[in-house]
């Protein structure tokens, strides 16, 4: 069974609820993590939520010299093993969509892990601009 | 010429033996490292020159044979005249014409060049009657000093490669392993691990390749057994390795020799070339299925590279640092392949075990440590040199009967066995039998067989400090207990030697030693605190004298001693001339006066005084 984000930018109001949901889902040591998703404005009052696309041929996996990024075959997410990560920022530089990020609070690299199968961002999106849907 | 079968080998042996024995008169000149340093090469050249000029019947220039080390290094350069076995010591170039004229031409023995027994004051002509040799039982050193290490024909003539031939043609690999196991041979490098068991484990591991390595990285201060063996009888080491290769199914062997042993490297390389030429190394040795070749690897002189896993890393071209051996190197050794690593002496012994049988070998030594062991005697001992004795012989026999005791009528204080990681044993332990288990039980170890003898003018704290200093320098630095722990132990020891130590320091040192012993990664680290631990065990009072009384009973630690001139002073002025700080004043034939303010405790006066008039307290 495959799931995929469905984005409908015309519904996005730029309310940034997805950001909050992501940050709090990734709370560590009582501090929210850096959000892995951002609604970005492309015109006046027009937004589109941008997050990791879990590319099939992912540049982040390729660029990691230490094998810290691996695909979770169950969820399809490319997950970062922080125990193996050296913070060399190769993935940050390599991702063509700019979706591997540096979390300065926790001093680590972060990227979308699909919250283990049910992304909080999609759950909390009030306008359904972002949905996580089963596809045929 | 390639030897293709055992018959060809035997024919060749006959030929070599005939040629070897044709030389009735043989002039053996020891060209071991110590004799070389004393001018043996000059002696050798001079002999050839004089003989060539004289042109004596039956004694050609070929009679002059340069041999490897004969063991009695204290008396070098050594010259032995066969067939009588006349043993000349401290031979100089100027003695040669006289030796040729008197002894070789007229059979007259030159008394003053003979060995003089210190006790009986008698001169001894035949070296077999000299106590140093009479008490020895030479198995590993069987050919050392008797043959030219660079001539494979000599080795063949005295029965070399016979053990290998027997193993390859008459014995299955398992039978070789069984024989070695039965002989009870234990690793001569120090560990004392049963060689047969090591081979058996390695042979059982399935792999595309097995390696055989000979450990010639002898690094203990005062130890030179392996150097001598490799330099004087390199073929015996090769033969042992070939037998091992047959037993474990190896095709590639390495000999790891330290760069500081140039003679051993040269002789080994020559031996390997010769063995290859005659087909004793290479493909299908003696027509058997065994294909085996050996390569010499030179070590850069790191003490730690004598540790098996560090040695293998070094052979593989990596930094010579040990790894944790939770998986043994017989299973995963060089290049992660099963590897047998044995010491030079172990390999040199193996051919004799195969040739003469395990029962013959076990007739020497003790039940748990069969056979013989080569010891090197160094330090404050009359006969410094190399001896091979049956296991189980007491320290007293080695040091006093064979070694001739302590020079200058001083008293024996301690003997260090097993190198820096071994321990110092006091006079009470002199009747301890020298075998693996007894030495370990006494808080020391067999080690590779180095013995450093110390007299009563030795400070045991200073000795511990010296060897700790050595280990601090030689620690590889990979793990903390060894790198930092030994450094701190050394610092604390220095503090005690300077008279600044406290009893709390001693406690801290004991605690630290325990952690280093348990916590270190390799054997070097684990045994690193031994110089301290073993001296503390037997000489605690000496440590306490340094700490409580601020005195050095050995009269060595400069901060804790005072020099005084006693009434034996004859007023000879020698000390006045020797004193670098002009602390001694006086007139001829009057007792000299030493100014304590100016004295730096350098000991120069003590060294030059012929009348024991300097007291050190």
């Amino acid at each position, binding site marked *: 069974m495959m799931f995929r984000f469905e984005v409908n*930018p*015309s519904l996005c109001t730029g309310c940034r609820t997805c950001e909050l949901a992501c940050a709090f889902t990734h709370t560590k040591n009582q501090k929210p993590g850096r959000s892995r998703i*951002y609604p*970005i404005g*492309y*015109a006046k009052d*027009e*937004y*589109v939520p*941008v997050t990791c696309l879990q590319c099939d041929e992912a*540049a982040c996996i*390729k*660029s990691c*010299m*230490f*094998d*810290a990024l691996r695909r979770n075959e169950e969820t399809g997410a490319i997950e970062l093993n922080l125990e*193996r990560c*050296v*913070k*060399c*920022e190769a993935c*940050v*530089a*390599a991702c*063509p*969509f*700019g979706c*591997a*990020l540096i979390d300065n609070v926790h001093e680590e690299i972060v990227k979308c892990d699909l919250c283990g199968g049910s992304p909080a961002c999609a759950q909390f999106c009030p306008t359904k601009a972002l949905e996580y849907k089963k596809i045929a | 010429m390639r030897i293709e079968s055992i018959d060809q080998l035997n024919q060749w042996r006959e030929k070599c033996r005939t040629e070897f024995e044709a030389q009735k008169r043989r002039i053996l000149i020891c060209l071991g490292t110590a004799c070389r340093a004393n001018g043996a090469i000059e002696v050798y050249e001079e002999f050839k020159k004089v003989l060539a000029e004289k042109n004596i019947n039956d004694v050609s220039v070929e009679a002059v044979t340069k041999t490897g080390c004969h063991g009695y290094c204290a008396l070098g350069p050594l010259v032995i005249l066969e067939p009588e076995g006349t043993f000349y010591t401290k031979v100089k170039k100027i003695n040669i014409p006289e030796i040729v004229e008197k002894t070789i031409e007229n059979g007259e023995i030159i008394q003053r060049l003979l060995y003089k027994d210190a006790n009986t004051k008698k001169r001894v002509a035949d070296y077999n009657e000299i106590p140093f040799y009479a008490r020895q039982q030479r198995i590993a050193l069987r050919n050392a000093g008797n043959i030219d290490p660079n001539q494979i024909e000599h080795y063949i003539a005295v029965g070399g490669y016979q053990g290998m031939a027997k193993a390859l043609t008459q014995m299955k690999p398992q039978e070789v392993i069984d024989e070695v196991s039965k002989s009870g041979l234990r690793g001569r490098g120090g560990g004392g691990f049963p060689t047969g068991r090591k081979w058996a484990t390695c042979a059982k591991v399935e792999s595309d390749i097995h390696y055989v390595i000979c450990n010639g990285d002898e690094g203990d201060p005062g130890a030179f057994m392996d150097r001598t063996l490799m330099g004087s009888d390199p073929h015996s080491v090769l033969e042992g390795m070939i037998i091992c290769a047959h037993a474990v199914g190896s095709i590639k062997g390495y000999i790891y020799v330290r760069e500081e042993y140039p003679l051993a490297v040269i002789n080994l390389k020559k031996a390997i070339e010769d063995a290859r030429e005659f087909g004793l190394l290479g493909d299908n040795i003696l027509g058997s299925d065994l294909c085996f070749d050996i390569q010499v690897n030179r070590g850069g002189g*790191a003490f730690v590279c004598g540790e098996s896993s560090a040695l293998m890393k070094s052979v593989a071209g990596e*930094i010579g640092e040990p*790894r*944790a051996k*939770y*998986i043994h190197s017989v299973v995963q050794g060089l290049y992660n392949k099963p590897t047998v690593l044995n010491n030079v002496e172990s390999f040199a012994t193996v051919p004799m075990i195969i040739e003469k049988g395990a029962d013959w070998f076990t007739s020497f030594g003790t039940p748990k440590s069969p056979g013989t062991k080569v010891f090197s005697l160094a330090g404050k001992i009359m006969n410094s040199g190399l001896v091979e004795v049956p296991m189980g012989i007491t320290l007293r026999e080695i040091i006093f009967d064979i070694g001739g005791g302590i020079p200058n009528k001083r008293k024996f204080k301690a003997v260090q066995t097993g190198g820096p990681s071994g321990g110092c044993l006091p006079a009470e332990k002199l009747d301890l039998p020298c075998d693996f288990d007894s030495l370990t039980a006494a808080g020391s170890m067999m080690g590779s067989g180095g013995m450093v003898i110390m007299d009563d003018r030795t400070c045991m704290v200073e000795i511990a400090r010296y060897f700790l200093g050595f280990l*601090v*320098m*030689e*620690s*590889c*630095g*990979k*793990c*903390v*207990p060894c*790198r*930092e*722990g*030994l*450094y*701190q132990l050394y*610092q*604390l020891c220095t503090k005690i030697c300077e008279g600044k130590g406290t009893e709390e320091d001693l406690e*801290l040192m004991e*605690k630290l030693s325990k*952690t280093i012993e*348990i*916590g270190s*990664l390799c054997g070097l680290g684990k045994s690193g605190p031994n110089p301290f631990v073993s001296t503390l065990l037997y000489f605690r009072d000496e440590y306490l004298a340094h700490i409580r009384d601020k005195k050095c009973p050995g009269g060595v630690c400069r901060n804790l001693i005072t020099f005084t001139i006693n009434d034996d002073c004859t007023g000879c002025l020698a000390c006045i001339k020797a004193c670098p700080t002009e602390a001694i004043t006086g007139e001829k034939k009057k007792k000299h006066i030493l100014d304590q303010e100016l004295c730096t405790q350098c000991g120069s006066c003590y060294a030059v005084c012929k009348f024991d008039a300097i007291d050190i307290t």
Partner: protein
Amino acid sequence: MLLAVIRREGVDVPALCEHEAIEPCGSCRLCMVEITKKEWDGWKNHVTSCLYPVEDGLIVSTHTDQVMEIRKTILDLYMARCPGSEVIQKMAEEYGIYKTSYITVPDADNCIMCYACTRICEVLGKSAIAAVERGHRKVIAPPFGDVPPDCIGCLSCAHICPTDVIKWNDEDGTRTIWKKNFELITCKECGKNIISREFADYIIEKREVPAEYFETCDDCKRAEVARKMGSLVTRAKEVSL
């Protein structure tokens, strides 16, 4: 290895030289534990758990008196060697050590010689730095103490260092580490520094990642994604109108 199992079970065993991205080497000795087995008849051994293979029937004690004593002594030694390291100080304080019992090492730096830096460089495939000299004089250094020819300025060594000894500096588009200067790629849109040119080239060559991925920073790349998606939406709206 044993350490992973111990940690999985939630037992806290300290370690400084251990990192998942590199092979264990057992140099810090802090993860030492006591092991035994029923059939060993009471015989015990002390091993570094980062290197010891997991075996059936192994009985592991992580906090015996002896083990704690070893850890304390080692931390005490570290305090003498690295008097300025906060990481070491914090760890030692947990074991009740506030001041070293030993002589502070002269010219002490905070390097604990754990080889994490050299090991990570090896994994990267460069081995630009190595341990040189022996024993107490040992230091981590580039070949011949010179500018390391193989270094690509990725900072992996500096990031992995448990005591933060390896210093680097990014200034005016230039990165300096091991006395070697590297050109930093600057984002062609906003001018932000990305990674060193040599590191990017290495990834491009080794892992066949398109070079143009490295031209812009992550922020500008996300903005670009938004722009592209937005233009699709705009066009769709125009079409429907």
